[in-house]
């Protein structure tokens, strides 16, 4: 079941689609208390529920003071079934002349006490039980869960009724029974949460630190189980109020002397042939109380971990942007007739937690030549992935992309709406992603998924598409294509799944292939094969490739030209050999130096001090200045434009005066047996 429910994971990773920036992760329990309360207080619906509940509590406590009537005895027996307002009875009277308002106030008492009893029983039994079987697992879990299964195999009310048969009827017994059944729900919840928490490394960390089982359970696991538990407790309280009313309505809960809301409904039924009125106030009281608990519980859940926003098919196209008045920037070096030419791309996202916008990609220009492999290199948060997605009109919600122009093979893409772009996506531009297994739909065979664009774009019949898919499988090196075409994605290893993705991306013979970190999720020995495959297919079909990666080694293997991104900007671009041999930007130099290589070393590894700042901290000047070893006064003046230096473009004020170090050839030691036999030490 956990597998089936994997899709439910409530982790609010809004940036997951493209991770435009290192958005601070707000995990459930990690949110500081003040932020939790701020979020809860801002939730008007939840607050309305909370206020209503406070009123119910007040009514329950002060019931005798709020009314002059008695809960169980009629004031005057001739006052039977008075309408509201009649003779001073605000809500009228019931079939034996008792004041309904009074009974509603007292009913609040029974509802709260009954709810509290059931929830308390459920927690006292369920929490330790769930913690124990979740933590110790093994036989304890097997026996415990079997027991839970037995209890929940029967509807909760039925099981409660069976327990009531054993205990005898009455409100206390009824709620005890309900509590026992609910304890199974709590047990299951706590166990599942403990299972999840046990997989967390911080629990292993605590065990490694020497914390005892008990300490791990109470100090490390329980606090992180608490949020869902609190939410569930609130919702169960609502269920308990409902159950109390229901059982009292049947006559196996509250007895005739107790003015519970459910009992009132039962009494109202006796006079229903004359009027329905006595049934209305208790019904509404139950209804509102349950609603209040539910909305408050939902509010708590949202405050603990906000649901990811959006959910609509959350992507958008690129909107046109005014051409900037300033002098045209230098053309990115490259061919005169590029396949794709991107000018002035900006992407903004709303800043997390606030209404203001932040720019995550600024003024990106890019030219990709025909049949050329262009690498877009950067660390996480540089904006490289989202730049690639914007070319297909796939900027995830709530991002907003705008550009002066995107020309693909002579056609302007900016200004096309989402549906026009559909004929570009898959047909003119293919894309492969970082996580091949997640990028394939688990519900369909891979063959159907590869055939889909063939049918949509090329109008092939089912049969033709399948035949073509089999050919494609063979071309991307999937063994046994006839058989594998009918397999499901989970039956493929990561490398094979990526081959499927490549087959799909190339199925309609696109002109451009976007490869977004195509090897990052794969094992190192598989990575190489994937690079070879992409390179080979691109060359043989004349496809241009936009290779998005953080790995300079991958770039060196495949790329013809390279653009280096840092904090939303392209800081350097040029031919691969130029950029790597003679970098023109200090960030490129730092990146080249920091990459671990197979070479002997001395002293500390070179590093770039500090971290990539989040987008809302990007300054209005050189984004890299704070980490730059060459930073000088002129770097702090204002925004830096791209400028030509040698055959490259660079976004550095001091580039003309700096001597930056590129990749060092001499440092690399050739491994024996490579290039030529060493000739030394023949076998004796």
């Amino acid at each position: 079941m956990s597998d089936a429910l994997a899709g439910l994971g409530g982790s609010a990773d809004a940036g997951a689609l493209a991770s435009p920036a290192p958005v601070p992760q707000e995990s459930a329990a990690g949110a500081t208390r003040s932020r939790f309360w701020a979020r809860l207080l801002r939730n008007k619906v939840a607050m309305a529920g909370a206020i209503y509940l406070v009123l119910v509590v007040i009514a329950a406590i002060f019931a005798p003071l709020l009314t002059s009537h008695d809960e169980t005895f009629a004031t005057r027996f001739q006052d039977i079934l008075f309408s509201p307002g009649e003779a001073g009875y605000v809500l009228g009277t019931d079939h034996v002349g008792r004041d309904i308002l009074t009974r509603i106030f007292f009913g609040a008492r029974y509802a709260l006490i009954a709810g509290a009893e059931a929830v308390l029983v459920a927690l006292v039994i369920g929490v330790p039980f769930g913690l124990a079987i979740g933590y110790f697992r093994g036989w304890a879990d097997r026996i415990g869960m079997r027991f839970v299964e037995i209890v929940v195999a029967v509807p909760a009310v039925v099981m409660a009724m069976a327990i009531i048969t054993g205990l005898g009827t009455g409100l206390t017994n009824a709620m005890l029974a309900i509590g026992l059944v609910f304890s199974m729900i709590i047990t299951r919840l706590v166990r599942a949460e403990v299972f999840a928490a046990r997989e967390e490394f911080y629990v292993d960390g605590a065990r490694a630190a020497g914390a005892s089982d008990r300490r791990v359970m109470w100090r490390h696991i329980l606090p992180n189980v608490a949020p869902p538990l609190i939410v569930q407790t609130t919702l169960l309280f609502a269920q308990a109020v409902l159950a109390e009313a229901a059982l009292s309505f049947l006559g196996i809960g509250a007895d005739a002397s107790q003015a519970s809301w459910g009992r009132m409904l039962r009494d109202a039924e006796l006079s229903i042939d004359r009027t329905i009125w006595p049934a209305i106030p208790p019904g509404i009281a139950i209804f509102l109380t349950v609603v209040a608990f539910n909305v408050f519980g939902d509010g708590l859940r949202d405050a603990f971990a906000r649901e990811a926003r959006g959910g609509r098919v959350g992507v958008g196209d690129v909107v046109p942007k005014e051409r900037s008045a300033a002098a045209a920037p230098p053309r990115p070096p490259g061919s005169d007739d590029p396949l794709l030419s991107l000018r002035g791309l900006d992407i903004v996202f709303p800043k997390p937690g606030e209404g203001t916008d932040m720019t995550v990609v600024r003024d990106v220009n890019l030219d990709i030549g025909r049949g050329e492999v262009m690498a877009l290199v950067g660390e996480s948060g540089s904006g490289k992935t989202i730049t690639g997605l914007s070319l297909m009109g796939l900027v995830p919600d709530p991002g907003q992309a705008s550009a002066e122009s995107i020309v693909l093979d002579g056609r302007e893409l900016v200004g096309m709406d989402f549906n026009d772009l559909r004929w570009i996506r898959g047909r003119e531009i293919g894309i492969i992603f970082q996580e091949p297994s997640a990028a394939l739909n688990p519900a369909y065979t891979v063959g159907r998924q590869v055939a889909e664009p063939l049918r949509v774009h090329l109008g092939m019949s089912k049969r033709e598409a399948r035949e073509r898919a089999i050919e494609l499988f063979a071309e991307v090196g999937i063994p046994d294509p006839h058989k594998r075409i009918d397999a499901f994605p989970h039956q493929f290893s990561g490398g094979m799944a990526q081959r499927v993705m490549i087959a799909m991306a190339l199925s309609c013979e696109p002109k451009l292939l976007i490869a977004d970190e195509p090897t990052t999720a794969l094992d190192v020995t598989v990575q190489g094969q994937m690079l070879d495959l992409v390179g080979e297919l691109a060359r043989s079909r004349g496809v241009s490739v936009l290779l998005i990666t953080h790995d300079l080694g991958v770039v060196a293997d495949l790329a013809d030209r390279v653009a280096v991104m840092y904090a939303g900007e392209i800081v350097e671009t040029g031919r691969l050999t130029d950029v790597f041999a003679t970098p023109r930007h200090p960030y490129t130099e730092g990146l080249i130096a920091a990459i671990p290589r197979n070479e002997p070393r001395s002293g500390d590894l070179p590093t770039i001090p500090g971290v990539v700042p989040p987008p809302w901290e990007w300054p209005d000047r050189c984004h890299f200045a704070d980490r730059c070893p060459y930073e000088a006064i002129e770097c702090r003046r204002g925004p830096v434009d791209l400028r030509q230096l040698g055959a490259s473009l660079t976004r550095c004020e001091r580039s003309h005066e700096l001597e930056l170090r590129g990749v060092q050839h001499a440092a690399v030691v050739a491994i024996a047996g490579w290039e030529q036999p060493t000739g030394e030490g023949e076998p004796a």
Partner: protein
Amino acid sequence: MSEPLLDIDDVTIVFPGGRGALPWQKLPEVRAVQHVSLQIDAGDTLGLVGESGSGKTTLGRAVLRFLRPESGSIRLGDFDVTGFGRQVPTEYRKTVQVVFQDPVGSLNPSMVVGAIIAEPLRIHFGMDSSAARERAGELLEQVGLQRHHLDRYPHEFSGGQRQRIAVARALATEPDLLVLDEPVSALDVSTQSQVINLLERLQRETGAAYLLIAHDLAVVRHTCHRIAVMYHSRVVELGESDDICERPTHPYTELLLASIPDPDPAVQHVKSQRRRELAQGVAGASGRAPTGSCPFAERCPHVMDVCRESFPEPIPTATGGTVWCHLHTNGPMLGGRPVSELAAGSSMAEASAPAADG
């Protein structure tokens, strides 16, 4: 020669198979680690390298005594780790500490940094809260953070900073051995080297030994004195870092080295050539590890019949390491290429005798 600090002797780790679709069906067990022997001297760093599914993390967890091997023994100092019962002695927890890969998941999100670092101090040194806080502050400074970070929650830090906090927590008990499970692989390149430099400085300062588990040979080379290469449950080669990385004697080690892309386009050109020659068959270890043969046989460009019939005995290499490969006993000519190309500068003939205790 003194005893090694950590002595892993002929350890095999087996995971029971899950249940099948039918209630009485049992899936076969998974042999995650088979007959692995490794030693680490005090103050030394051993790199354990392999791809996913190689068993490297499982072996690390056995050292941490999060799981118990099926057979073999693990000894650390005076502790007989495999002899522990359900309760692991607190003293042992003090001696061995761990840093995990995931900088997000490895710190309890509901505790402030101060409490996270203070926990081991209070457990192992019985410090009161003010003393623990004082010491936690020192530790934070030692890993390059500031005292005022004590009252922050983990989610307020970047990945690299979180790894520093995890290191501070691990060092709090003044351990003899630190198990580092992919400590930098989730970090950006520029942050990776910061954490590596930190770990090296701390080793010089504290004298702790490291077991560094990683998939990237280049990273491991820079950090480790010795390297053990694992493939699909077996250690296939063991030796000094520079020897492993410059004169590999196992075909898998060579493939690994050829697969690490290099930022120098010229070097990468040579490497990718070699990679294509070496990479054969279906890439990636899959399925269950075989018990009676070399797990690399299916992918090995030099595979011989004997490779499918038995797993080789350990053979000393010329550079003082050990290799588990039939090529070194059943060579020397393969496909027209002398074995010496795989093990340059070594003399194979001497290597035929199994070296049990090296």
